[in-house]
């Protein structure tokens, strides 16, 4: 276990960096959030109507109109400035002093200021194609493998592609700023990130594997991802258990935990592929055994035996799990006198920690500050 430093140094890792966001998408907002939570000055330069993220469900019960919980999560520790209310000089100064401007239209930004566009596709034949988080799961090759064998495939929900794109876009953004500080890069660079290409992170090993093997298996059903077996989510007496068993020793321990010792040494079952072939036989037995057992108890017993089982917590259960509580994995985003719990930064610099939660700006709250 890594000891947490008791006295973090004052100052945060990204102090002194200034980012201006003109895009206001989930992708640009998450990219900006990572900067803001680590101490950069991030300015949402919003239209009169506010960024579209303010309209995204789910909504909190506070604010008028009610504050979008998604916007709150994405906007902690940022500044909100109304673009139309800034004087021409103030606007030019704000842009001019930015280390990076997040925008879909780099031509609107002076040539000496660096920009980053986070686009669905980037320049190329699909540049003008319409896309959503869902359509990118179709195009990155994942969707064909999700859901019942007979179809239709199940679409993953939420804003996942944009979060992957936003986190990915942080890499060239910060590398460029650091590169400028090191003398490796010059201001005025036009950076871009393709969310489509970022989403290929999930499937690039399979695509390269296909090039070499010619193998691409049909969808086999819910939670079937060959060759790993058993793999999946099973109902237990007290909730859901996630199962992954790969090596012969894990199979041994798993059989022991589920009281199916007689299968532990079956030669065919020593390999994942062999077990997958026999899944019609194995699956009902696992299901039957787990139905009466406690997921919570099995999780700890399995981990003690080095078998990577895990609870599959519901959203409410996530907030109650000791591991996440002890790490402050959720913290309060505050808005006026109210607050809502949002996920904290997943990576923690121990000497210069991120903000955990933080204030969410009202629309235009910081306009005056930048006049």
């Amino acid at each position, binding site marked *: 276990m890594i000891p947490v430093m008791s006295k973090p140094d004052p100052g945060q890792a990204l102090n002194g960096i200034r980012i201006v966001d003109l895009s206001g998408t989930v992708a640009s907002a998450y990219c900006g959030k990572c900067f803001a939570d680590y101490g950069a000055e991030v300015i949402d330069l919003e239209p009169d109507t506010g960024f579209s993220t303010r309209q995204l469900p789910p909504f909190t019960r506070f604010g008028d109109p009610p504050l979008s919980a998604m916007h709150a999560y994405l906007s902690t520790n940022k500044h909100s400035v109304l673009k139309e209310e800034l004087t021409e000089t103030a606007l030019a100064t704000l842009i001019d002093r930015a280390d990076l401007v997040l925008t879909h239209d780099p031509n609107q930004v002076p040539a000496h200021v660096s920009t980053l566009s986070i686009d669905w596709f980037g320049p190329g034949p699909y540049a003008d194609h319409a896309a959503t988080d869902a359509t990118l799961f179709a195009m990155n090759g994942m969707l064909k493998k999700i859901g019942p064998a007979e179809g239709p495939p199940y679409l993953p929900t939420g804003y996942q592609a944009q979060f992957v794109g936003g986190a990915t876009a942080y890499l060239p953004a910060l590398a460029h700023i650091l590169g400028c500080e090191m003398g490796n890069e010059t201001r005025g660079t036009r950076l871009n990130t393709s969310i489509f290409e*970022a989403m290929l992170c999930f499937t690039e090993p399979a695509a390269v594997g296909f090039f070499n093997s010619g193998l691409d298996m049909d969808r086999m059903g819910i939670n079937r991802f060959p060759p790993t077996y058993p793999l999946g989510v099973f109902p237990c007496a007290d909730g859901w258990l*996630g199962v992954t068993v790969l090596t012969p020793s894990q199979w041994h321990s798993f059989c022991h935990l589920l009281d199916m010792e007689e299968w532990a040494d079956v030669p065919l079952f020593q390999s994942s592929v062999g077990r997958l072939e026999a899944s019609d036989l194995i699956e009902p037995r696992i299901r039957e055994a787990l139905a009466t057992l406690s997921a919570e108890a099995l999780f700890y017993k399995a981990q003690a035996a080095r078998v990577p089982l895990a609870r599959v917590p519901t959203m409410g259960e996530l907030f109650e799990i000791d591991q996440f509580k002890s790490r402050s994995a959720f913290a309060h985003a505050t808005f006026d006198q109210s607050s809502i719990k949002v996920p904290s930064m997943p990576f923690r610099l121990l000497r210069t920690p991120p903000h955990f939660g933080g204030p969410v700006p009202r629309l235009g709250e910081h306009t005056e500050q930048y006049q």
Partner: protein
Amino acid sequence: MSPLSGIRIIDLSMGWAGPLACRHLADLGAEVIKVESCIRFDWWRSWEATPEWIDQDGAEKSTSFNMVNRNKRAITLELDQADGRALLLRLVSHANAVVENFSGGVLKKLGLEYETLRAHNEQIVLLSMPPFGASGPWADFRAYGSTVEHASGLPHLNGQPEDLPVMQHVALGDPVGGIAGAQALLTALRHQRRTEQGQQIDLSQTEALFPLASHGILEFSATGREPDRGRDRPNTSIHQGVYPCQGHDEWLVIEITRPTEWLTFVETLNLPSHLSQPDTGPHHPDLRTYIADRTTLESAASLMETLQRQGIAAARTFSYSDLLTDPHLAARDFWQWKDRAVVGRQPNPSAPYRFGAAPIPVNTPAPTLGEHNAEVLGGLLGLSADELSDLNARGIIGSRPRLR
């Protein structure tokens, strides 16, 4: 000159997440030195070694390993031997950061915990990226990328009410954890550059998936209600669906994001005119049947093109082979073809970001086991040829896997 020229990373990580984090840094110009053991080599080469596998150069044939380790140099060191450990610490004194994703306790057992590294290089950054984070009661627990998806709760947000919670991927946690790892490294390197201070980074791969589940997490947080699995849950769109098309397992995803697109959509697909009102059409009980009756008559590719021409978000379900031949990716030179020892010509995916029109080059394919022993240990650390052959003879370094 690349953005990160002058930065050196020691990569002790294995599998997917850690090596992917370091691949990003390598693409961005950092010098990444991958350190493996000839006995406990990167498990993405293989879970286990046999004499035949070694004889047939099995260690060099893993396409996954080769995909995630390009633009790096590779050396071998037996870290449980005193001389191997000492050489690693000498490397650390020349490095900006060390990355590891060993199981809990291994770094300590090797005597390579942060305090030791820091004693050799006060400015060193150490990134640890365990599945549940390096603190808390689960700090030493084990997980695969699938376990991480389980523990994030995300499967509860996918599928139909009658289904089990639905997973998305065989190892969802790995690539997302890899991106977070690269984010973490850059953040700490920026602090190091500014203050000459090093530090430890604790990354939880499970928490790295929370943003992907944030729509569900925030719904509970905001309302106290569990999201219903199984409703069609378009974010703000007025229609979203997956429809069958001509051919085996061919599907089209359609998402209508704005009411203004509705009439165009209905007309483009020649749907019955009583569906054309944007306030009622999307809620018609037979809408999905009407659309499916239409899409089954045509290929997904041509429907995608037809709808896209009208500005409607439509995408066919790509297979892995489609990714290799996709015209957009081809026009962008996304796949960079490189000759690699043992396996020959291979497609390498470009970094998903660019600093101009061209992709960041894949300068070197994935190194072979210990390929740069002489270059790194001789060059950077100044070991003589005699010292290197002595290390080789004693099995501290090598270029072929050995059985345990």
